[in-house]
């Protein structure tokens, strides 16, 4: 009679565990998978080494002049040399502290709003007053004001990343209230108002931004009485806002439609007027639902902002072209474009991540 003894269990085969196991499971589990993996590896082999070589390994980070810089790979010292141009455009060097200060103030305000739960009692008063004060500070700092003794810097000097951010931010903020009105108009039972809203929204959404920009650049002054002059940047802002309004309206309409019907009925039953119902019951919920999409729409606007270069405003992308006209740095356009792409990419990537977290935070579905 043999006595049962527990045998030591064998370790799992090498091919099933550890890195090797993972590789086999995920990359070489079948014939098709193997072929695909090899294809992917080949693609990486074709793309990555030359790209990394151009961007990093053979690139020059320290050369002082174009002649010293390598011709075969990227010359990043060109970007360093032109950094001021890329960030602020032709904004005078001695005034660079102004956009920098504004950025600091913006971050501070963002912190205040973020931690506004610490002073709950007057939270809304603080936030609202920030919303009133902030645009004034921004305008006085960037443009200047004789009365306050801040030197005026005309908008044709503005440029670079600063201008890109200004245009996108003004566009989204200014289009917001009109967008809400249009969204409400589109949902309205009043047929003429509904028709006007739909006509505007669909008209704008049907044409490319570039034609709207052309229109405001060439035609806008013709629509006003003689003597009303429009700054070039102001024209672009008007065009961008008119464009963005239609898209924001659609985003908010999506939010309005997502508010359950019971909320409308409950508000009506409580005897609230239309305005009260909208302001206190429907819009807060609708806006909350649409926040991720509003961020998405801001991302789209940020990308579209590059189009202002077509009407002669020097946003960051335009600077990439302008900077190459410096005869000391001929033939460095690729570096400029890649740098601009990287900056915009990082900003947009962070924003899209942020919108994803918001989506999760606001998802109250069970």
């Amino acid at each position, binding site marked *: 009679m043999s006595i049962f003894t527990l045998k030591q269990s064998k370790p799992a085969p090498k091919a099933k565990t550890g890195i090797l196991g993972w590789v086999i499971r*995920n*990359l070489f*589990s079948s014939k098709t*998978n193997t072929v*695909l*993996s090899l*294809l*992917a*590896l080949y*693609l*990486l082999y074709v793309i990555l080494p030359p790209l990394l070589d151009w961007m990093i390994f053979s690139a020059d980070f320290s050369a002082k002049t174009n002649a010293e810089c390598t011709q075969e790979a990227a010359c990043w010292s060109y970007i360093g040399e032109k950094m001021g141009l890329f960030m602020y455009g032709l904004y005078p060097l001695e005034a660079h502290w102004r956009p920098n200060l504004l950025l600091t103030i913006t971050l501070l305000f963002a912190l205040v709003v973020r931690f506004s739960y610490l002073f709950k009692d007057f939270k809304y008063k603080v936030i609202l007053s920030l919303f009133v004060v902030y645009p004034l500070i921004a305008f006085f700092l960037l443009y200047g004001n004789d009365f306050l003794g801040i030197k005026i810097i005309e908008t044709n000097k503005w440029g670079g990343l600063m201008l890109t951010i200004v245009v996108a931010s003004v566009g989204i903020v200014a289009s917001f209230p009109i967008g809400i009105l249009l969204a409400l108009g589109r949902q309205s*039972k*009043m*047929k*003429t*108002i509904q028709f*006007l809203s739909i006509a505007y929204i669909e*008209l704008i*959404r*049907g*044409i*490319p*931004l*570039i*034609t709207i920009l*052309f*229109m405001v650049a*060439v*035609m806008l*002054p*013709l*629509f*006003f*009485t*003689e003597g009303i002059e429009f700054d070039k940047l102001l024209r672009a802002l008007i065009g961008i806002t008119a464009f963005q309004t239609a898209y924001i309206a659609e985003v908010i309409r999506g939010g309005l439609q997502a508010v359950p019907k019971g909320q409308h009925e409950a508000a009506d039953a409580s005897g609230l007027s239309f305005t009260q119902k909208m302001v206190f019951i429907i819009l807060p919920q609708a806006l909350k639902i649409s926040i991720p999409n509003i961020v998405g729409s801001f*991302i789209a606007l*940020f*990308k*579209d*902002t*590059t*189009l202002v*270069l*077509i009407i002669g405003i020097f946003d960051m*992308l335009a600077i*990439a*072209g302008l900077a190459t006209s410096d005869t000391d740095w001929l*033939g460095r*356009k*690729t570096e400029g*474009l*890649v740098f*601009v*792409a990287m900056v*915009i*990419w990082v900003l*947009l*990537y962070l924003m*899209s991540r942020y919108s994803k977290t918001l989506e999760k935070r606001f998802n109250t579905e069970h």
Partner: protein
Amino acid sequence: MFGFLNNNKIRFVLFQVLAVLIVAYVAYYAISNLNYNIERLGIRSGFDFLEVRAGFDITEHLIAYTVDSSNLGAFYVGLVNTIVVSVIGIIFASILGFIIGIARLSSNYLISKLAETYVEIFRNIPILLQIFFWYNLMLISLPSPRNSFDFFDKVFFNLRGIYLPKPIFESEFSWVVIAFFLGASLSFFSKRFFSKKHDKTGTKQRTWHYHLLSLLGLPLGVYLLLGAPLHFDYPSLQGFNFEGGLSFSPEFLALVLALSIYTATYISEAIRAGIESVDNGQKEAGLAMGLTQTQTLKFVLLPQALRVAIPPIINQYLNLTKNSSLAAAIGYADLVGVFSGTVLNQVGQAIEIILMTMAVYLTLSLLISLGLNFVNHKMRIKGLNE
């Protein structure tokens, strides 16, 4: 005193009248100023300029155009170029987007990560920047015509663009086209015949060889019978440049490349969302019914996935068409570049020209939306909401 304002009916009328009055006033203000300013600045108005000789050349024209053509001719050239660039962009974006969308769902780690990286990179870079980037890359890296990349001495690729053999159709070729349509309708009817037979008797027949024969065999047979009424005009190096053949400029190539790469990211996301929207139980049910993998995909999964994916994809087609207007930034002769650019600079009649351009894009958008509605109607779940 204002108690009547609380009456809903009166408020309805009042608000609507108010809205119309405001819009009418704004329109009146704008138009009267416009008229005044036009007179003051001595701007010509009207559409007479369309008949005037354009006086500039456009290198890329698919329809007849010379320096002596009218501005209307230039308008048509731009319109055709816009449509060509959009259609080709849509084709490439769809193919690329479909591949990437499927790849993102692949169980293969490398493939899905590669696809994800592609989407994340190209979706977050402005399309205009991408157009500039590819155009710039082409200008600095492509060889001169003398050293052009050469494929079998028939296709050439260089700084001036890509040169393909140009097919020249003789008059007999129309018979081949007729044969093709005949074959296509034959194939269509045979498909209906066999699917009816399948519905009635349940027997399934392999039919692909019928389709192959009628779609390809018939036109090919006619083509050979008529003695091959088609020859090619090959591009050849004449001095410093290529002559003959069918050529596409680097501007065109950069535009198509950027538009397809950019739009493909959105299309792939739509495809992925579509496939992910189909419940896994559907696949399991299909397999449990005894359908093969391919049949499950073809008859169960794809129809449901496409219903979700197609509307956003068509929206992306619309976006691509609108984005093609950025051609103006690198000097491709599309509608905005030629008409709102060159013609506008020469004639100076901004209002007419920009309104015409807007009208064209609106029409294109409307056409695509109509297509979308048609597809939605075709793909709706039958029996629901009827």
